[in-house]
């Protein structure tokens, strides 16, 4: 009986959580499209998410591109298919690795920071103070972060794509002695606009997910330092899982047969 009760409690908690998240998402989105807007806050969040995440995303991308070129070479050389390396690097990066790795890195950096900041504001009554000052916390705190996440992740991913391809180029040309002109020509000729567009659509979705889960976890945090810590963990774990799930769904929509 206790076992059944435990399962029941878990199921109820899950649906309760899902309901709260749905209401939170609908409220947040409705505030993103209705004035007043807070341009200063949106700009600040865009700088936080875009500019300050550039080093970590850039480093991830360049090493991913380098490893991809190296690993592809060791595999393809057995079949004398080295000329496909440029193709593999550019397609893998633009379609998958660029958006997913950037998404996961930004989830760790920005999702955690949003959850911690908003969670601390919740437990120190700063969010209640906003309400008493006739300021809607969704408009002031959540909407700018969602808008900034939605807009800046594609920019980050575009930069990551370029840096990643450059990483692959460096390994191919300077380590594996490929002809620079032919490598670049292969890269450009194999690349289709849809490869880049699908990556950017994924990036927008990931940016929205990261900001949403960061804000949601922080907004609903309880207690003191422990509650804020739990909110931070929840934000990173839930946004990472959602990124991987949504990545499959979008891939299926764009490239599924």
């Amino acid at each position, binding site marked *: 009986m206790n076992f059944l009760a435990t399962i029941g409690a878990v199921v109820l908690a899950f649906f309760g959580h899902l309901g709260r998240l749905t209401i939170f998402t609908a409220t947040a989105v409705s505030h993103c499209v209705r004035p007043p807007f807070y341009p200063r806050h949106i700009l600040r969040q865009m700088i936080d998410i875009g500019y300050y995440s550039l080093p970590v995303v850039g480093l991830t991308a360049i090493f991913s591109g380098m490893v991809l070129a190296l690993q592809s070479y060791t595999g393809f050389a057995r079949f004398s298919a080295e000329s496909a390396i440029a193709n593999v690097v550019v397609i893998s990066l633009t379609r998958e690795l660029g958006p997913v790795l950037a998404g996961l890195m930004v989830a760790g950096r920005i999702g955690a920071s949003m959850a911690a*900041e908003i969670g601390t*504001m919740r437990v*120190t*009554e*700063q969010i*209640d*103070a906003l*309400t*008493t*000052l*006739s*300021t*809607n916390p969704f408009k*002031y705190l959540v909407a700018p972060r969602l808008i900034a996440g939605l807009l800046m992740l594609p920019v980050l991913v575009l930069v990551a794509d370029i840096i990643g391809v450059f990483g692959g180029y460096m390994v191919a040309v300077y380590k594996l002695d490929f002809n620079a002109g032919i490598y670049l020509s292969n890269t450009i000729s194999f690349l289709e606009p849809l490869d880049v567009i699908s990556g950017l659509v994924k990036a927008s979705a990931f940016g929205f997910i990261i900001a949403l889960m960061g804000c949601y976890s922080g907004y609903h945090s309880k207690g003191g330092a422990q509650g804020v810590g739990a909110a931070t963990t929840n934000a990173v774990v839930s946004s990472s899982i959602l990124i991987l799930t949504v990545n499959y769904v979008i891939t299926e929509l764009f490239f599924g047969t």
Partner: protein
Amino acid sequence: MTEVPKIRLTDVRKSFGAKKVLDGITLDVAKAESVVIIGGSGTGKSVLLKCILGILLADSGAIEVDGENVTHLRAAQREAANKKFGMLFQGGALFDSLPVWENVAFGLIQGEHMNRKDAKHRAIETLAKVGLTADVAELSPSELSGGMQKRVGLARAIAGAPEIVFFDEPTTGLDPIMGDVINDLIVSCVRNQGITALSITHDMASAKKIGDRIAMLYQGKLIWIGDAKSVDASDNEYVDQFVHGRAEGPIKMQVRR
């Protein structure tokens, strides 16, 4: 014709799960009157203030401000209704991402859309009213002592010239002298500006100094309401025990030995 009370609570109830926190609260607060609610920790004093402000929704009963029912307002109506209120939070609840002046001017900039230059000027004037000099204006809240944070919180509460101010434990965590300074500031702000005040506190010296009337909350009910001067001779054994801070009496603390 009798004057409409500034705040009227009629049979307000609020529960969290099976726990009844407010169990039929009925109270009138007249214009320019200062009412203090006393009661032990966890008796629902803060919940009552949050229900009036719409931060929490009352389960049943009616909350009226200037004769208008504000119990279940929509978000936009709530923002408008809250323009009448100011609140001093127990922990200050200052926005740590903003300098002191912007904390004080927050309601003016966000709520009243005052330009930043004028808002800063008004913030510095308001800081002067609570005994803080202009050089404090540029500091961050984390650079202030507890007493100074309370003063900044008080300045923020009164900066928008609200008709009603709530004080949540205004002297908690302060030394007796600083506590009395805050009490004097509250009295002068409330009396000079004709503000209606609703305060909650454990501090009897503070309650007697800042209140015209005192009400005691116990087990979700207001068990005594009377003139602040008569609280020492209330003829109510619960009030008597609380006022004199005795461990023995009808109020039993849940202590495990």
